[in-house]
């Protein structure tokens, strides 16, 4: 993040001819600008069309295939939000996402602390076990989860979503957080011990604050997929009042013919909150990911 910029494009290829060099530099700068702006458009492209369709009326979505709505209206958005009780689904999504994220941060920061700094028999084997789970396909555990939860009587509720979501994030969370805790100098722990601090205090007052970027990172890497989760939610929820936003959106789609203005209004309602969450935490996020990967 600091001064380690790789500013090759500015490098003059032939220093002997300064005029051509500076001309080349200007050309390079334009090319760089065009490429960066181009990919920004590519990144936002589906999102732009989502906004465009959501602002169109039922008549306009058929008649006007252009990006810019002729008479933009918020009526479709308001109507979709009200008529389909999106506020209820929104609260469901917030609840499931919040408790899943909380669970992941609490459970796996503790586990990662043990893997990174405490000596105990079986440590390496357990750590490897959790990493291997990264390769178990979702499709193979989906059905057993449904059957198990049916036995336990938690199928169909939000708790039945949160537990497998937390467990499913284990490999990634342990990987990132173990690396982050490992980067904390040993001396801090030794010094705190001399002062008489117990293991839990060392964890809570030294390691957790120092690993905050990594914790924010794993919180986001949990919250984003959980917010958008569709597969397990789809096969386990029956009662419409428990639906999360993606399932409510799917239900919108199943209705008769596709009304793209309504559908895109619903889609917009699904993505806006998570985009806001990401933007408000992205500063920590990027640094945390970089730090965690550096190990």
């Amino acid at each position, binding site marked *: 993040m600091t001064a380690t910029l790789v500013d090759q494009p500015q490098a003059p290829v032939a220093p002997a001819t300064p005029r051509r060099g500076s001309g080349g530099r200007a050309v390079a700068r334009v090319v760089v600008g065009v490429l960066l702006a181009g*990919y920004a458009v590519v990144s936002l492209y589906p999102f732009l069309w989502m906004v465009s369709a959501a602002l169109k009326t039922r008549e306009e979505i058929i008649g006007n295939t*252009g990006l810019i709505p002729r008479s933009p209206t918020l009526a479709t958005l308001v109507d979709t939000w009200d008529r389909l009780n999106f506020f209820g689904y929104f609260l469901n999504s917030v609840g499931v996402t919040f408790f899943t994220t909380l669970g992941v941060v609490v459970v796996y920061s503790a586990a990662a602390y043990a893997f990174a700094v405490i000596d105990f028999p079986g440590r390496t084997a357990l750590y*490897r076990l959790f990493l291997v789970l990264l390769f178990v396909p979702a499709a193979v*555990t989906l059905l057993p989860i449904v059957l*198990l939860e049916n036995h336990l009587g938690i199928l169909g509720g939000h708790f039945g979503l949160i537990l497998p979501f937390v467990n499913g994030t*284990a490999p990634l969370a342990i*990987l990132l957080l173990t690396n982050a805790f490992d980067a904390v100098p040993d001396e801090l722990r030794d010094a705190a011990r001399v002062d008489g601090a117990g293991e839990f205090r060392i964890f809570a007052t030294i390691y957790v604050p120092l690993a905050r970027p990594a914790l924010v990172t794993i919180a986001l890497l949990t919250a984003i997929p959980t917010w958008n989760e569709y597969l397990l939610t789809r096969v386990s929820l029956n009662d419409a009042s428990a639906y999360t936003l993606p399932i409510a959106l799917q239900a919108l789609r199943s209705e008769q013919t596709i009304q793209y203005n309504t559908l895109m209004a619903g889609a917009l309602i699904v993505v806006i909150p998570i985009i806001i969450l990401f933007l408000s935490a992205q500063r920590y996020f*990027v640094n945390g990911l*970089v730090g965690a*990967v550096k190990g």
Partner: protein
Amino acid sequence: MTAASSEAVAGAVSPLGRAGRGPHFRRREKAWGYAFVAPALLLFAVMGVYTIAYGFTLSFARWNGFSPRWIWVGLENYIDLLGGSPVYGPPVRAAALNTLWVMIAVPLLTVAVSFPLAVILNSVTRLRTVLRSVYFIPYVTNGIAIYFAWQYIYEPNGAINGVLGALGLGSLQQPQGFLGNPATALPALIVVMVWTAVPVAMLLYLAGLQAIDPALLEAAKIDGAGWWRTNRSVVWPLLTGTTAIVVLLNLRDALQGFQVFLIATNGGPGDATNVLGLETYRLAFLSELAPTLGLASALGWMLFLVALVIALVNQRMLRRLR
């Protein structure tokens, strides 16, 4: 940087190498170690062990989900899937072929887009933070909502056909829409997958770029290497570890992921976009009363095995490179 990360991703012990206190673990420390991992283990025991054991056992049985008993069939499910059954073999083979295309195209295109993007982004100072956030939006919105938006722009009178018309490339337009034509549906979904994979790959490359010693680049410059030479002969080899992680993560997603296929095309038109992950899901949840749950499990475990082998090969190759 890349060394540690790739090791860690591939399941090595790098962050654990701190032992050094000999074989005699201190008892209190031991107890604390177990106490800290206990919640994670407990959850894994409830949600993980049962589901994995159940799924694995089921892969040796025939069951439709309703009948009271399983019929043990040994390895028959695996054999059927590998071509032994005239009913289940052909669709699996077709899905495997589609999956193979995805596994080749997605990692390759993701690296081809994200590496240059990261290099260019790293060379500018103005707007870098803003652009990085913008480039990350595809990952943040990755889910059913954005798949619907892609469906919308792939429609017969959607945005992509519109752009092609405006550019005078009307011959490339798809009158049935890009997802409606069996020839273009798979490439169209590969584009969506690459689009969602680029953000994380780009961030990993950015992290790698910032860890490169500026002196090395300075030396290349003094030796007269231009922008292209420096990046090809100095930067790219230095980031081999990052490339390995990006390829591994995308191979796994290409092999096992199927959400976009389920939502955007449901494998169609015909079976043009059916992939192995989706086939697993179909066998498990969409085959009504047919006794295909064991087959679904067996297929899932084969996908696990392939992913694991890929990860191990990846790790081995990295080690040899070092």
